[in-house]
């Protein structure tokens, strides 16, 4: 690698590298083989590794469930679910088995499976192609939930996910797949469970991930304030410390996500800040989120998604309060 890649290319090159490095890696999912994936994230892999790349039947419970068996035989399953909402079809396999086979067996059977799936809105896709349910996945103990926000981050975090001894739900913001290029180092592995301080600042902390990070950076660029921007990267287990330390320093915080507001991850983050940084808060934490409505079809989608304007307005409100 070490090339300037788009996010979707970073996915592909990471999978290629992991297939090459480790014979036990198998890649499968709907249309990942001959077509190379509906976003071309697996293009060329079947040709290069014909014995370890497979097109799957259209059956997400199956895709998730067979992973438990593949892993038991010593393989390292890397499955693609074509869109995040269709992981719901396999949610029971995820929650009842993948997430807990380690604890059920006191560590004697494990499931080092990675489930990659395009996630989030902003590409004017069909109904149910734009959801973000990271909070629901994060509520299942045993899962690691990752959302990358750039090509290099994708490579680093996906490498770590494939190598992780635990199951990872790897949520790829479709909106960022082709939106920009970035230098991606070869054999890049980033730690899971560690947030990234994207921008340092003293006045206010913003926590944002996925494509909301980009909107946030657009918003903060407009602002004449010293803002710390944190990308948790791993949604669960969440790196509380980095967030809490930042809020202790800034005393002000805004959390952004595109998932519906109620019961979203912002609630969890606000609770942790309340627990560990309450006395440092100069003003309440705000959250800028999707609304509590199903993501509308694309003609109304832009109205649903938080954008740089809404984030900027939110930051201003929190800065202006005292």
């Amino acid at each position, binding site marked *: 690698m070490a090339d300037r890649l788009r996010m979707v290319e970073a996915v592909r090159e990471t999978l290629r590298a992991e297939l090459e490095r480790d014979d036990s890696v198998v890649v499968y999912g709907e249309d990942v083989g001959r077509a190379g994936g509906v976003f071309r994230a697996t293009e060329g892999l079947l040709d290069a590794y014909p014995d370890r790349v497979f097109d799957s039947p259209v059956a997400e419970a199956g895709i998730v469930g067979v992973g438990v068996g593949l892993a038991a035989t010593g393989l390292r399953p890397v499955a693609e679910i074509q869109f995040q909402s269709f992981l719901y079809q396999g949610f029971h396999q995820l929650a009842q088995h993948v997430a807990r086979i380690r604890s059920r067996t006191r560590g004697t059977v494990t499931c080092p499976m990675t489930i990659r799936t395009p996630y989030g809105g902003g590409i004017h896709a069909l109904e149910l192609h734009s959801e973000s349910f990271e909070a629901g996945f994060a509520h299942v103990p045993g899962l690691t939930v990752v959302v990358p926000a750039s090509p290099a981050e994708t490579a680093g975090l996906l490498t770590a996910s494939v190598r992780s001894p635990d199951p990872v739900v790897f949520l790829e913001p479709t909106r960022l797949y082709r939106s920009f290029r970035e230098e991606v180092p070869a054999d890049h592995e980033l730690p899971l469970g560690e947030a990234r301080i994207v921008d340092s600042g003293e006045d206010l902390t913003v926590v944002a991930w996925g494509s909301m990070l980009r909107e946030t950076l657009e918003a903060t660029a407009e602002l004449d304030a010293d803002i710390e921007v944190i990308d948790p990267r791993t949604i669960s287990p969440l790196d509380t410390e980095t967030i809490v330390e930042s809020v202790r320093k800034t005393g002000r915080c805004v959390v952004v996500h595109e998932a519906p507001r109620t019961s979203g991850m912002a609630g969890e983050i606000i609770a942790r800040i309340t627990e560990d940084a309450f006395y440092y808060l100069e003003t309440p934490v705000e959250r800028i989120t999707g609304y509590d409505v199903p993501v509308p*079809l694309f003609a109304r989608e832009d109205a649903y998604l938080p954008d740089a304007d809404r984030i900027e307005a939110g930051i201003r409100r929190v800065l202006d309060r005292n």
Partner: protein
Amino acid sequence: MPREDIAQFTIRSVQVLAEDGTVDEDLAPSLSDDELLDCYEAMKRARRLDERAISLQRRGELGTYAPAIGQEAAQVGSAFAMDEDDWIVPSFREQSALMVRETPPQQILEYAMGMEEGAEIPVDEHALPPAIPVGTQPLHAAGVGWGEAIQESPNVALTYFGDGATSEGDVYEALNFAGVYDAQTVFLCQNNRYAISTRLEDQTAAETLAQKAIAAGIDGVRVDGNDVLGVYRVVSEAIERARDGDPTLVEALTYRRSMHTTSDDPSVYREAAEEDEWEARDPIVRFQVYLENRGLLDEETKATIDERVESEIADAIDRVNAARDELDPADMFRHVYAEQPPELERQAAAFERKGDRDG
């Protein structure tokens, strides 16, 4: 007993209108000349809408669109077999069938423009909106067919899904529920040989999809899906059985001649030669030859139909463009619950005020 054969099953395939345009008179359904021409016009309308939709999408005026070019016989033939009060339970590729059921092309385009307006169901229309998640809607159709049975109504539900969908557990559960509850449901699987790029042999080891009915103990039958008369006949029979509580799985063997959706490039996963082969088996051409041979279709009639279809679609495009310009985004808050809960009211208000306070 030591070894004993305890159950035997046969899957039958039906064709009424052969590829050369000749018909098996014993099996030919008794449709009037007008009905036959209506059927033809419906197929033409569907084809033309798909073609126009693809070019609108190419010009950026439409979102992702799933054309059914090549599948018109399967959809139109089956939709014609329904009574007015029967239920249509479609997936995302059923514009041909929906238009037979009098969904205006405008609504189909609205949906493709990302407007919920396109999935509004008129009062008293027995239809469910298109299901985007593959294989989910056959369960709804099983529920409709069961609900009608509970209420001793004669209405049946006809649901559409693809070959890929048959791999989803939901479809199997739907067949099984229908069998248990004597649901008044017909399951129409359009086997167009591909689930996006995935060929049938990577989808299942089953040699036919009709045989999936056996697992649920219901009838399964295959029909040539490019033969509109065959589809009409087989589905009519299935509907009649369904009215008595006997559900059927019909496999209509067809071919998606164009892309999976406008986001898809089939040349990545299939040969032009294969596409050419199926061009020759086009369902409209075949039916046209038959109608011409029967003396029902001359150049003038064809031209009249083409013009009518063309202007209907042009009208629809005008109307939908106008509707799009009047779209109220705040509408997304209005139909989540029957009555808006306070938190949602607050969010809607925040949305209108923009920036004053967030959702």
